[in-house]
């Protein structure tokens, strides 16, 4: 593949524009229109995401077109939405623009801030990719239990096998969440009781714990915190007051806000290192008209987070929630198991196993593509950042000095 010089592409477009003899008024009007369209599109797209959930609440059917809020397929739509907004944003920012505005207020401050947020988002993407890998691991453990409990008739051997797998699974989910081993409340109790019931045997549990290094100590340094990253990303996110010269401050603000929202949501849903306090770290001002659907989503997700954070959860991803719920329930069943299982009980268990099987299948099908999407996000952000940096360099905002 011959190496190509991407370096000049956007610059050529800018300089062409600059040299055109244009009617200033027409241009300006066109620009305003583009900005308004961008805003409208953002609102529309996020409205769709919000409505996904609302429709689900009224129907029981697992219609493929609807995606439950915070499910894998919903996230696929969320990331898609982000990518669409990002493309449009780039077009608005760079094409039709006199690049010299990049070196003047307010963009001279806003753009570097946005780029800084992008770098944090890149790190979050990497953490999320790692987190999804972990979720895959959990689904494989769950699959063991599914296979075991789908056998007929269910005998002790199957139950013990399922229980071993589920204990490993639940311990892993807990360990990751309290990575710094400050076990509190229910989760500590649960861990201790797992150890005590000992169908898995204390030796096994000890070994499991020692090598339960699914935690993020392998991926990032101990001091990196997803929650703090989100907080840093949102601290200087300030809505622009009207009337600034370029009219670009608003789209930059919109794009930045969406970026932080998407990252915040991902961190809440997928196991990530250090998420304490996440709920409070991002709040969009409620008076923004374009942001109504985003705020709607934020409210719902924030509430979920508050509920689950107290109990302790591995992540808000719907599939993870189901695993947590069903796995715990099945472990209870396993603890009280006596052969043979009564018909009523057997049906109940069969239902739960089917639910778990369904989730495992969804994960098997969906987590791979989701990881690829996150990676796509990563690439897109890298490219956009490079392009914006190029333009900023060209206008001499950042002077590369020759060091000697």
């Amino acid at each position: 593949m011959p190496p190509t010089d991407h370096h000049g592409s956007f610059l050529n477009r800018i300089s062409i524009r600059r040299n055109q003899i244009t009617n200033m008024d027409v241009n300006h009007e066109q620009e305003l229109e583009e900005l308004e369209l961008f805003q409208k599109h953002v609102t529309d797209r996020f409205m769709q995401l919000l409505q996904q959930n609302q429709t689900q609440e009224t129907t029981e059917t697992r219609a493929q077109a609807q995606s439950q809020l915070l499910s894998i397929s919903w996230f696929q739509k969320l990331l898609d939405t982000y990518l669409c907004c990002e493309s449009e944003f780039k077009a608005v920012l760079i094409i039709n623009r006199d690049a010299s505005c990049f070196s003047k207020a307010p963009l001279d401050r806003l753009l570097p801030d946005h780029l800084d947020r992008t770098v944090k988002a890149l790190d979050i993407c990497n953490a999320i990719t790692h987190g999804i890998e972990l979720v895959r691991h959990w689904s494989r453990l769950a699959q063991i239990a599914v296979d075991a409990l789908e056998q007929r008739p269910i005998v002790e051997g199957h139950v013990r096998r399922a229980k071993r797998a589920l204990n490993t699974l639940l311990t892993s989910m807990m360990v990751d969440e309290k990575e710094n081993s400050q076990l509190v409340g229910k989760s500590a109790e649960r861990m201790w009781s797992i150890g005590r019931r000992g169908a898995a045997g204390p030796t096994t549990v000890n070994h499991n714990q020692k090598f339960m290094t699914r935690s993020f100590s392998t991926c990032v340094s101990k001091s990196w915190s997803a929650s703090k990253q989100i907080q840093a990303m949102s601290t200087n996110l300030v809505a622009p007051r009207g009337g600034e010269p370029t009219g670009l401050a608003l789209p930059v603000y919109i794009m930045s806000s969406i970026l932080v929202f998407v990252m915040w949501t991902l961190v809440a849903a997928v196991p990530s290192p250090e998420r304490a306090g996440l709920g409070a770290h991002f709040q969009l001002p409620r008076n923004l008209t374009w942001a109504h659907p985003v705020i709607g989503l934020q409210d719902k997700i924030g509430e979920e987070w508050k509920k689950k954070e107290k109990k302790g959860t591995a992540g808000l991803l719907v599939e993870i929630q189901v695993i947590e719920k069903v796995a715990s329930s099945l472990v209870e069943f396993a603890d009280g198991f006596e052969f043979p299982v009564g018909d009523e009980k057997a049906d109940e268990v069969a239902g739960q196993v089917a639910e778990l099987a369904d989730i495992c299948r969804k994960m098997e099908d969906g987590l791979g593509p989701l990881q690829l999407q996150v990676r796509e996000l990563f690439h897109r952000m890298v490219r956009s950042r490079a392009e914006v940096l190029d333009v900023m360099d060209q206008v001499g905002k950042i002077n590369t000095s020759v060091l000697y």
Partner: protein
Amino acid sequence: MGSPANDVPAEQIILRWDSTASEDARVRMIFEGDRDEIDRYLHAVDQIQRSMDNTTLSEDESKKVNNTIQIAMARLEDEFRNILITNSTPIETESLTDSISSNPLTPRTSSCHSPDNNERNNKRDIEAVARISSASFTERKTYVSCRSMNSIREQDLIPQESVSDLRCIAKRMITAGYFRECVQVYGSVRKSVVDGSFKKLGVEKLSIGDIQRLEWDSLNAKIGRWIRAAKVCIRVLFASEKKLCKQIFKDLGSAAADDACFMETVKGPATQLFNFAEAISISRRSPEKLFKILDLHDSLLDLLSDIDNVFDSKPAESIRVQSTEILSRLAEAARGMLSEFENAVLREPSRVPVPGGTIHPLTRYVMNYISLISDYKITLGGLIVSNPSTGSRNSGDSPTGPEIDFSEHEEQSPLALHLIWIIAILQFNLEGKSKHYKDNSLAYLFIMNNVHYIVQKIKGSQELREMIGDHYLRTLTRIFRQAATNHQRATWIGVLHCLRDQGLHSTGSFSSGVSKSALRERFKSFNAIFDEVHRTQALWLVPDEQLREELRISILEKLIPAYRSFLGRFRNHISDNYIKYTVEDLENAVLQDLFEGYAVSQHSRRRSQ
């Protein structure tokens, strides 16, 4: 063979080792005991396994068998884990670190600097180089002569006996349908071991944000370390893990168990490893990073076939993809940095004139940079495929860049054209700088010095000379010679003007015909101007010894005959008081004092040391 009666002993053996049933079974490990016990247990498992296939079993018997198998599998899982843990140590690195040479992989051309006779220049050259290339440059010079880490070299991570035990267990687990448990146990233990090895090799966990904030010196060192560590990771660590997986799992069951276990073990660490290189490839571009980026690029390129080899399965595709992505980003970054460099040279804004008109630090920096480029010409030549964008920068008022016609250089590679362009930019910038000298003569001297330096650097390196070509070299030579001429003219026209014949002869009718007053004025002027030139230009500097001599001689060639003849004709017409200099005095003044960069004392004629 399959009758329930024969199963009893087998079942008993398995039940005896149920760790949930007895303290003894929990504390002791089968595979740490004697070989007979191990064989007995495995045999028992096999029997139970066989009886599972028996379709004549009653419901009760079937239930028992299912339960027994589960107990056996749980036990085997614990044994498996235990064997792995007991025998897992992080990779041995001592023998490796010696054999990893930091020798670059693509051949670097050797000569970089022509020896400068002037010590001051040498020192400054070395400093300037050090700042650009830091480790990259000095490492090239320190060659570690041991065999280098340039091919896959697997180690045995676990003793053979344990390996075969593990395989025995894995076989049973997979046959009984416990494949997932087996993979999960294997992966979790081995992954921690790999993490331990990473720590030993100094593979760090830095976020992209961390890396953006690092100072260049520190980052430089980390890149060097990463390159060395990556070679070991891929060629030894991962390769060995893969071999181990094959030894334990190959051909057991139908599910490519060895690939699954390998990925389970290394996917996380491999991603972590490459994330660093990825972070480097997307970091801010600045010219001084270029050569380290090229080192990184070359190392990764060199590792690529081994990466493809080690990560050849379908699940490993993301790792292969990531490494090629990184490679192409590094290439793009390198191209960008070269561009940045060109812009930086063009825009370099310092206005303070270098005292004495000597070599400007920018000139040194650029020429050293170019030399390094020629050292890396094989790599860079492959990456730089488009000609420099000279663009039409001359929009009316004042040119903002040099004009250059590349049609005269059609046969040269794009990289060579970039070098020529860089020199043209440098010159253009120097021209601008020279205008800040108040004295025209000094401005010319400045240009002469710097362009001559450029020429010397090119001539001193065969690669540079080849790339830049004789045509452009001649152009440059013309330029500095012209500057020398301009300088001489600017300085000495005034002086020689004092020694002209016209105006000294009076138009009287007397035969002597020389106007004594005019003559006196001439001598006074000459002395004053020469003094001034002598005093001023002694402080100026021509660092190159040969050039200095040539210039002095050239000056004298015009000055001495003129003065001698002047003296010859007119000394008798005037008192000796007005004659300040002998011919020899002039010679000495020029040959010993001019362009030395030292002040001359007014009252004595300085002798050279």
